[in-house]
């Protein structure tokens, strides 16, 4: 078990580490001096510098504030609407066409609008993140409710449960694994959208720090921020995946293959 894990870790790191070492060697041996490229060692010291001077923490905090607020608003509204259209066939019929018309709008198309209404700052970013996360939550919640075992719904009818308590006591627990998947996918989308807003216009957070490093010709810092953003993305995804497995692995209805 431990050996298998060590082997897995070795295999995961072998290629990137080799590439980085070769890159570093090439950089040193040819004596490159560049506005765009930096050796990994320089990127690492730039990373430490960004940690020490506090810019890394500030930027990360700003990005996460937008990400989490946007996710809470968009995800909450998506969850609530998804429950309604999952439960009621009429509501689904009346809204599906409108949903199919609005959902394909790329979230970045709302960026200029958000900028015009809210100006720079948290609110415009939260607005765009909320719009982008609303749809996956809506669709996944709806399908989660649809796939709840029909007999459980019958039970709630027989017990004479009111819609709200039926949702809380029967449907939500039964749909929980799929909702967790929605949370994982939604968090990934929220990070991408938040960083994109910051790169395209909003002068705060990790995306802006990355852009600023490029504009001020500090390639080492740029690569450091790029790797940090990638590390955050990977960590968020892997830890939510772990949480999902840990929470639901004991359940007979949990399909581990969806969690890949």
């Amino acid at each position, binding site marked *: 078990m431990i050996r298998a894990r060590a082997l897995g870790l070795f295999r995961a790191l072998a290629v990137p580490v080799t590439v980085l070492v070769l890159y570093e060697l090439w950089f040193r041996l040819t004596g490159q001096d560049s506005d765009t490229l930096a050796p990994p060692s320089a990127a690492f010291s730039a990373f430490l510098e960004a940690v020490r001077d506090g810019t890394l923490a500030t930027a990360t905090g700003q990005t996460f504030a937008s990400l989490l607020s946007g996710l809470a608003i968009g995800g909450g509204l998506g969850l609530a609407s998804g429950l309604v259209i999952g439960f009621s066939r*009429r509501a689904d019929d*009346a809204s599906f066409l409108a949903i199919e018309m609005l959902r394909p709008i790329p979230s970045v198309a709302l960026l200029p609008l958000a900028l015009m*209404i809210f100006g720079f700052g948290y609110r415009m970013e939260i607005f765009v993140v909320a719009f982008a996360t609303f749809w996956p939550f809506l669709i996944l919640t709806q399908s989660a409710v649809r796939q709840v075992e029909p007999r459980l719904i019958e039970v709630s009818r027989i017990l004479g449960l009111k819609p709200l308590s039926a949702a809380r006591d029967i449907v939500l627990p039964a749909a929980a694994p799929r909702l967790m998947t929605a949370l994982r996918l939604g968090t990934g989308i929220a990070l991408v959208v938040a960083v994109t807003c910051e790169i395209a216009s909003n002068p705060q957070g990790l995306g802006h720090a990355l852009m600023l490093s490029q504009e001020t010709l500090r390639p080492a810092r740029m690569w450091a921020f790029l790797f940090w953003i990638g590390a955050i993305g990977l960590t968020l995804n892997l830890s939510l995946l772990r949480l999902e497995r840990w929470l639901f692995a004991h359940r007979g209805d949990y399909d581990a293959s969806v969690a890949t």
Partner: protein
Amino acid sequence: MTRSPPAVRFGLGIAGVVVLGLAWHLATTLQLVPRVFLPSPEATWKALQRGLSVGDMANQFGGTVQRMLLGWLLASIVAIAIGSLIGISPLARAYLRPTLGFLRALPASATIPIAIALVGLSPTMVLAVVTFGSIWPTLLATVQGFAMVEPRLIEVSRALHMSRLAFIWKIGLPNALPDILTGMRLSMTVALILAVIGEMLAAQSGLGQAILLAARSFRTPDLYAGIVLLGLIGAVSSYGLQLVERRLLRWKSH
């Protein structure tokens, strides 16, 4: 839950859209929302007509579509080729999958500053970003599809002494096709987003730049017209690919 009959469903669906349109109309005529932020549906429609007939909007629409499709096509070819090569070898999969996972988790737009530094603010930069960003969903899906090929088919290919290329072409790709097509659909949405962002940042003529300029000068009807067109591109490309998917995968359901 059983579905409503199609006639009822579409009737109600259209009614829903009409109600939404009326709500939009009322919100603007009753001035519930400032007109600078939300123009009336009529004004948006007029801006759309004007933009497409006299204005530059048709060209911008074409520019965005072209950037998106070209980048997506390049990305798909590269992704399927590399994905097949990684996918047929369990060893290559074991070594490369984690790195690919990292690259996919990286927000694609984060590579824009790198691309600007390397290529400069040029049309090539936008194309490079669109291509690079939309490679990952298809690449990972291809690897995944190859990993899931029925082991007995692999044994058959060995017994028949198939070459690697023949295996990829005759067994691997057809079996991985459902995964690949799903990946390509995801890649398409990524490609559209990156094309728009690229136009905004590199000032390339396209809808991305158009809506940014419209918002800056408070020409809101033009802004909304641009958003409508971008939604249209998103919808058509996504449903178009779904149709292709259904056609190509018809053999699977039999």
